[in-house]
Structure formats: C-alpha cells, structure tokens
C-alpha cells in the first residue's frame, strides 16, 4: 500500500541523513547528549510530516530546517533557564581576552575559529555551520532560518568577519616585495 511505501522511503531518509544531522546539531550544541536528543526529535517530527512533503522536495534541506528550528528553541529555552537561575552566563569578552597571542599553529587557529563560532549569535552560528560545514546553499539556509537568501549570506559573511577579527595575529603578515 501507499502507506507502506512511504515508510520504506522514510527508512531511506533516516539512513541517508541521520549521521549528518546529528553531526550538525553536535557542531551547534557541542554536546553529544543534546545532539542525540535534538537529532532524534528532528526525525520524529520528520516522520509525522513526511507524507505531506511534496514529491521532489529537497529532503536534506528540509531536515536541516527542522533541526535548525529545534536548535533555536533549545537555545531559547537554555537562555530562559540561565536567566531564571541567574547562572553564570558565558562572558565572551573575557573569553576573547584570554586567547593566546601570536601563535601561528594551524591547530591553534582552528581551535580559535571554533571558539569564535561558539561565541557567535545563534543565527550566525547556524548559518555558518550549515554553509561551511555542510555545504548548504543560501536558499536552504534562508529557508531554515526563515529569512531571505541574502540575509542568510549576510549571516555567514558576518561570521567570517568575526572569525577574521578573532584570528588577528594568528595569520602571519606576509612581507610583500611586490607593490
């Protein structure tokens, strides 16, 4: 029956995308437990909505949109909890100041990029991760963040500018002989 076919198709969706969606959420939340929970919820929601998906839809982009939404809700809830319990909020300026200066190791630079990304506003972090870690196009990113393609690109570029500033001193200044 049609129903059974739809489910087989969903099996294939899980097989093809679960690992990547979990990796995406893991990059965003940096916690394996959150990645498990949010990726699971992504697919439970997807199963409920799967049959109303038009044929030929970009399933991967659609899953990223669901996961992105869940991540945003997750952070919203976390912010509320932080406020409620007045727990120590992440002080990013302090974090920035604590970075070692003048090191040029690629590993160090990568670690710094990760820290800058972790400190980005949520939308920029989501857009950056979707674009740079998962190669989604700006249309799909915009759909995920409920914004235009142009805003999606602006979020990614803004993230890159902040990374650029965060890496000051880590990328060696090349002495140019050429004018």
């Amino acid at each position: 029956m049609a129903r059974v076919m739809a489910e087989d198709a969903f099996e294939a969706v899980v097989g093809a995308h679960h690992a990547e969606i979990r990796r995406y959420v893991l990059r965003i939340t940096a916690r394996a437990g959150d990645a498990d929970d949010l990726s699971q919820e992504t697919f439970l929601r997807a199963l409920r909505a799967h049959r109303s998906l038009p044929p030929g839809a970009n399933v991967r982009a659609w899953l990223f949109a669901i996961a992105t939404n869940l991540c945003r809700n997750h952070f919203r809830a976390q912010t509320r909890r932080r406020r409620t319990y007045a727990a120590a909020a992440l002080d990013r300026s302090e974090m920035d100041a604590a970075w070692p200066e003048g090191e040029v190791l690629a590993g160090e630079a990568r670690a710094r990029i990760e820290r800058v990304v972790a400190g980005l506003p949520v939308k920029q972090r989501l857009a950056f991760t979707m674009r740079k870690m998962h190669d989604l196009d700006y249309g799909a990113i915009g759909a995920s963040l409920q914004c235009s393609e142009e805003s999606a690109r602006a979020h990614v570029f803004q993230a890159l500018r902040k990374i650029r500033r965060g890496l000051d001193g880590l990328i060696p200044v090349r002495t140019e002989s050429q004018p």
Partner: protein
Amino acid sequence: MSHPHPVCRELEPDLLAVATGEAAPAAAERIEGHVARCRPCREELRHYRAIEGLVGALRRAPLPGDDATLARAELESRLADLRRRLVSFGIFPSPLGPMLIARSELGVSLVRYLGGTGSVASEARRLLGEEAIEDRAAPEALYAELVEYLEGRRTRLDWPLDLRGARSDFQRRVLDATAQLPYGAVASYAGIARRIGAPAAARPVAQALRWNPLPIAIPCHRVIGSSGALVGYAGKRVALKQRLLAIEGVRTLPARGDFRVRREAMYALHVGDSEYCLPTCGSLASRPLSELMLFGSRERAEAAGLAPCTTCRPDLHPLSA
C-alpha cells in the same frame, strides 16, 4: 575592516565572496583589479583565503562525540513506537454522507460517519488525537473498496484491522465475532453473546457494537434484535443500517420508527450446522433468533460456504422473492 577607505568598504562584501569562491564573474574581476592596486585589501583577501583553508580543515577534522551508532539505535526504536501510534486519515464523500477513514501501520483503525456540527477536520482531530495526519493517499485504497461495497459491487472487505482502540477485551471479542458474519446474513445480539460464550450478555454486546470503531469493516449492521427489529445503528442512524442490509440483499419492513427483517421470508442456518434451510424446516420456526443466522438469498448462503439442507431442499423449493 581595519582600513576605512570608502571604496574598500564598498567592495568588502565582494572581496569576501571572492575569498569564499562565491563571487559572480563581474565582481571577481572588479576585486582582482582592486587588490592589484590596494595593499590592505590584498592582505585582507589573503586572510580570508587562509580562513577558508582553516575552515575546510576544521570541517575535515574529526569531531569529538561524532558517533551516531547508539543514537541511531535509539532513534529506530522511537520511530517504530511513533509509527505504531501514527494514524493517517482521509475524509471522503460517500452515499452515506462524509466518512472518515483512518489507518495505522497495523490496519484500518477508525471508520466514522461524520456530519455532526462543527468542521469535519476538527471532529477528526478530536476522534483521532494529535498524532493523526490528514493524508487521503493512505486510506484511498480502502475508500475505493468501500465505494465498491456501497454500490453492491463488492461483498468482502478484507482489510487488516487495527483493534487496539477497543475499549475492553470483551468488546474485542464481540467485534471479532461480528467480523465473522458473512455478507448478506444477519444474527442477533444474543446470538453474538452466545458465540463469545457469554449467552446472558446480549445488552453488553449491543453496547459494545454501539461503539464499534469500524462500522462496515466490522459489519455490526448485520446484528439485530431478537425480535427481528434492527434496533439501532451508529447512534440514531437506523435507516443507514436498513440501507446497508438492503445493499446486501436483506429486505426489511418499516415498523414503528424502526425496521425489521421478515424471518419467515429468509433462509436460516442453525448455528453449528453446515446446511441452510427454509425457515419452516423442522423446529427452526420456533427456535430463538439467537440460535440462527438468517440469509436474504440462497446465493448469499451458498457464498458463505453452506449447502442446501437435504431435508427441506431450499434449492428445489426456493422462497418466493
């Protein structure tokens, strides 16, 4: 950017686009020309390209905690659980009015005559709960068969049934026994009670059928009162019951706001026998309806696998139509 020249500032997004490999050809050309002249922007471009490289390395680097095996196993079990609860439904027009047909992974789980007040969609939601998905495609095949049945072109609905919604084990037994009643036959509530080994439970049987989640699929319209009166159906829709029986070739007469079958004009099976009889055969006429099953025609009795009685020979002396 650290250098604030207006030209450089204006070009900065294009410069970023070039660094990320996303620039349109015209913009790329513009930036190429500009960085050849502007040292800070050249430096800036080099920085952004270096960042692209680092970001690429970051993307390829192993990610701590990136093992989805356990999460996948748990997901599969949650999905299986959700699938068992998920129901797809459609609302379809029918000669009996709008009908809701819902099916789960296990089979058809709800058939309902709609047409109360309020929107049919909200009624469906109320009946089925939040996990229900409106999706006409899933029950479409069921609907097609239902239409064939209602037009008298189909005598069997071999649907897989999902009876998890049954209210009790008793109801499930009543529904199971009712599902055995062949097309074109009627039995009494007391007869179903006997069949499930609870001969005194005619009333509870009637109650159980009143809440039949799968009318038509489980043919509770084939169960009538001991007097031959149709008694009730889907609330106050006894006329529907009469109509369904008429489709199956069971004739009824109107009787004081109800309908009743004419026992004397139907072929009878003494439950447990394998032969059907004329209503006057032996002591049949004095037997309670609970011991009998009645058929509207020989054709229906024989389609149910019964042979004509060798004593009264309904095959040689059929009832006049």
